[in-house]
């Protein structure tokens, strides 16, 4: 078929739509609801085009290409129409960041999205790096919204294993529903309810698990927004490498696309997006490999203790010990999750160097369990996993464990050698049908862990053996005569475990996978009577009296703390430890009542510790609190004082404003929020200032812009301002500083660096002010903004973000499946 698109003559294939044909010829047409793996849906209408002799604007994704068609994709009318369609879509989506005038500066200061509980804009959205909506908005030029946007205030659903769902971001494109149906025949999720209440859910709002979800993650992968997210991966920065490799959890050997960031594995997905992979392949691999239980260093036993050591010494010691056991008293046990190359070296080592016939290779059973027993007369054993129950090890004279995780078996070993596995190594494995499948290294092994062939070859060499000088896994493949193995991409059927959760493997080399990947404990081996987790309520500590989410992701918490309330002064803060193991985090005292003995904090959920705090409810208790800390703001007669606040700062300036006004100042309060629904405390603030100005980035309430824009305007107009006090995020305070500097207006900011003790001892809260080192906890929190070294402060604040990303996926109260205790039913 020949047709014309944008004056270009093109040929369409049979059954092709106009959109497909155009895309194939590098003619871009914006589209959203359509997806290369799904049949057309025609819901978003962004792909509209003009076609001669057809009325109106047909959607190109649903219009079949036809002979002699004349299509236009880029007329001004179309662009305008698409912009309007996008604007309509953005009426129910947090869209302020898309029209913000300071996007570039924000990107520079906040390169990584903040780990917010709820997303109220791109800069707190897990999808920021890859968002299709953002790209569209950039391409089309996003315009103002015709009316203020609405926010649905839907609860963020984090009750399912692996998948987080924030329906407040959903644009109802239906991709998730369609892919689920495509992958499994009938869908786990669907549109529920009608008109403005339509949302993605399951029958009777059951959990995903109860609704029959297989956790294949396909819906997460196709969602164009941040609505559906992989809980573990969501806060990692954009991956810098993508490698294709093979899954070795089971003999299905699915082809995987592995994404890593700075050598750390972040996500695993199916290479062939048309066929689902099982929950282990999609969700378990990064958490499994990045587990803190991994062995990172070699250990050698010295008397009763295992002492950490370097490879050189470990190999030397092991070689010396092994020399005493040459002969059939030595045994090496491995299983088929080691690569062919590894196993070749194991066998060669056992036969040639140790001169033993006891080389044992176990085929794991359908649960992944590999168990072996020791033949009589075995004196020395090298295990590459937990293959032998620790009770059988009693009579041994030498035990060498080369493994990926520490266990009660490695605890008893004479030497422990850390092994690199899975996505950390190159090599070849066999799938269930005997075909060779390749492993390609996609990420770095933890610490000093090494590939298994490397360890055993080095060991052989240390024992003086010849023929083990391999430089790479490839060299061994050559010796073995393995020709290039191919990924198993084109398969006709999904692996069984992708259609039935209960068929998944539960062990890897003797290690229970659910011990490393916690959310797996929630999955069946199904049992309807999962008891809810008993939470022991504490009776000491500080009780929370009231807790409300007063704006999306902003929580007002009233705590019983009479001693703090008695002494508190404006601008001071407390340091809170939610439980005995949590981080110590400073929170500004927003309000207090000395008589009732209560204090009020405004807490944003932006990381692990604040999440722990906001997950508590009225009646619960927090472990520990110190305060009031910090030097209160100096309350005196300044003249006209402008207070600016954003996010938690809106609440934090309440008492400061009141005190300053009482001292006879003319107090102007300017508070900012991304959209109208991010504002709170209007009535309270009105009573403590002479003028209250609210601003929003999208102009849906008050003045459009940031708070600092109003300050700038006032200064430009020559209004007399004697002092500016800014409380909010680092970005907002920095912006204020820039604006007031040329006018020489005294500007104070409440700095919020990472703190530990809060008493001037640890130095964690160091800031540089006027080239001098200050401690924010005892010298601050207020500093002269024009003297602060902002760049240093920014860098220090993100110092632990990598660690935090790791933790944040795990703080969720994931109820363990009761069977995974002593008589875990994974064993069946």
């Amino acid at each position, binding site marked *: 078929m020949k047709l014309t698109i944008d004056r270009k003559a093109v040929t369409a294939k049979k059954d092709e739509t106009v959109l497909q044909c155009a895309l194939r010829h590098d003619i871009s047409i914006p589209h959203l609801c359509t997806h290369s793996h799904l049949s057309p849906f025609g819901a978003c209408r962004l792909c509209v085009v003009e076609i001669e002799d057809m009325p109106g604007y047909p959607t190109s994704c649903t219009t079949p290409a036809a002979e002699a068609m004349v299509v236009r994709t880029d007329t001004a009318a179309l662009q305008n129409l698409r912009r309007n369609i996008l604007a309509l879509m953005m009426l129910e989506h947090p869209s302020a960041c898309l029209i913000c005038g300071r996007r570039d500066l924000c990107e520079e200061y906040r390169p990584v999205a903040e780990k917010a509980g709820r997303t109220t804009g791109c800069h707190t959205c897990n999808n920021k790096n890859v968002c299709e909506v953002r790209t569209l908005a950039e391409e089309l030029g996003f315009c103002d919204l015709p009316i203020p946007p609405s926010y649905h205030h839907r609860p963020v659903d984090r009750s399912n294993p692996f998948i987080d769902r924030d329906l407040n971001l959903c644009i109802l494109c239906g991709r998730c*529903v369609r892919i689920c149906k495509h992958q499994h025949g*009938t869908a786990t999720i669907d549109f529920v309810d009608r008109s403005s209440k339509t949302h993605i859910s399951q*029958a009777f709002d059951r959990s995903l698990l109860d609704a029959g979800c297989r956790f294949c993650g396909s819906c997460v992968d196709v969602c164009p927004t941040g609505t559906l997210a992989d809980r573990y991966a969501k806060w990692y920065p954009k991956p810098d490498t993508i490698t294709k490799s093979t899954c070795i959890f089971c003999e299905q050997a699915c082809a995987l696309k592995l994404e890593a960031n700075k050598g750390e594995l972040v996500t695993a997905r199916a290479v062939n997006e048309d066929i689902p992979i099982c929950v282990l392949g999609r969700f378990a691999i990064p958490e499994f490999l990045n587990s803190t239980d991994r062995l990172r260093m070699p250990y050698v036993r010295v008397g009763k203790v295992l002492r950490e050591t370097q490879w050189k010494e470990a190999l030397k010691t092991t070689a010396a010990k092994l020399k005493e056991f040459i002969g059939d008293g030595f045994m090496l046990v491995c299983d088929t999750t080691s690569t062919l190359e590894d196993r070749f070296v194991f066998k060669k080592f056992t036969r040639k160097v140790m001169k033993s016939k006891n080389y044992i290779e176990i085929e794991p059973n359908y649960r992944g369990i590999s168990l072996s027993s020791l033949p009589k007369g075995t004196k020395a054993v090298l295990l590459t996993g937990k293959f032998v129950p620790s009770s059988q090890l009693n009579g041994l004279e030498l035990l060498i464990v080369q493994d990926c995780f520490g266990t009660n078996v490695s605890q008893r070993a004479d030497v422990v050698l850390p092994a690199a596995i899975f996505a950390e190594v190159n090599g070849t494995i066999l799938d269930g049908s005997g075909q060779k499948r390749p492993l390609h290294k996609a990420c770095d092994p933890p610490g000093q862990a090494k590939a298994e062939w490397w360890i055993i070859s080095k060991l052989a060499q240390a024992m003086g053996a010849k023929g083990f000088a391999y430089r790479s896994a490839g060299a061994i493949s050559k010796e073995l005569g393995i020709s290039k193995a191919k990924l198993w991409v084109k398969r006709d059927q999904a692996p069984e475990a992708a259609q039935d959760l209960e068929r998944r493997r539960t062990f890897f080399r003797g290690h229970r996978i659910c011990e490393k990947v916690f959310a797996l404990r929630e999955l069946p081996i199904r049992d309807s009577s999962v008891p809810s987790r008993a939470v022991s309520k504490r009776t000491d500590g500080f009780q929370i009296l009231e807790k409300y989410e007063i704006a999306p992701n902003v929580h007002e918490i009233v705590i019983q703390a009479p001693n703090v309330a008695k002494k508190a002064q404006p601008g001071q803060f407390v340091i809170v430890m939610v439980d005995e193991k949590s981080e110590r985090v400073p929170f500004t005292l927003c309000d207090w009542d000395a008589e009732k003995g209560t204090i009020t904090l405004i807490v944003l959920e932006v990381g692990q510790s604040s999440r722990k705090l906001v997950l508590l409810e009225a009646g619960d208790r927090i472990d520990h609190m110190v305060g009031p800390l910090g030097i209160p703001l100096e309350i005196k007669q300044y003249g006209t004082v402008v207070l600016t606040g954003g996010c938690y700062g809106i609440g934090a300036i309440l008492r400061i404003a009141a005190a300053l006004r009482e001292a006879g100042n003319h107090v102007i309060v300017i508070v900012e929020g991304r959209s109208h629904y991010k504002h709170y405390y209007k009535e309270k603030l009105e009573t403590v200032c002479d003028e209250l100005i609210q601003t929003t980035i999208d102009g849906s309430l008050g003045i459009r812009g940031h708070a600092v824009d109003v300050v700038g305007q006032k200064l430009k107009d020559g209004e007399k301002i004697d002092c500016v006090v800014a409380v909010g995020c680092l970005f907002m305070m920095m912006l204020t500083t820039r604006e007031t500097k040329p006018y020489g207006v005294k500007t104070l900011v409440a700095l919020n660096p990472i703190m530990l003790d809060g008493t001037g001892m640890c130095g964690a809260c160091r800031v540089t002010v006027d080239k001098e080192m200050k401690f924010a906890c005892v010298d601050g929190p207020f500093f002269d903004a024009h003297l602060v070294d902002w760049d240093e402060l920014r860098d220090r604040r993100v110092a632990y973000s990598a660690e935090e990303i790791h933790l944040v996926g795990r703080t969720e109260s994931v109820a363990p499946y009761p069977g995974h205790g002593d008589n875990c039913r994974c064993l069946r």
Partner: protein
Amino acid sequence: MKHILSQHLGKRSSLIPFLQDIQKEFGYLSTKAIDELSRSTDISANEIYGVATFYTQFRFSPPGEHTVRVCQGTACHVRRGRQILNEVEQQLKIKAGQTTEDRKFDLERVACLGCCALAPVVVVDDKVHARMTAKKISSVLSQYKGRQTRKK
């Protein structure tokens, strides 16, 4: 239930008639009914629920004894139909679309009942109460509070 299933199975008809029959029989679509339907049709309960929630005619909890319909059509609207609805909501302590805790009343808002001359109207079961005022509501409702007339 079995009888309904056997009537429709084999016919690749759409779900709607199925659901209508179930609702007619049991008065609502229970989790049990939908799960059973799912098993015999190979369509997941989620999809069935998705379809069913799209239509106002289906309900998912047992119906109340009496259905109170408050008209919000144009004629009733100009005659303060909204106020009437508010009043009923307050008295029954539920919102439109819900059922009282004691399962005595269902409350529905409807677009037009075709008796605009009588606006504003409230219809309880099949009886039309014309020219309602906020004051009259409690007496109308109390007529039904004691009565045990199972509606069909």
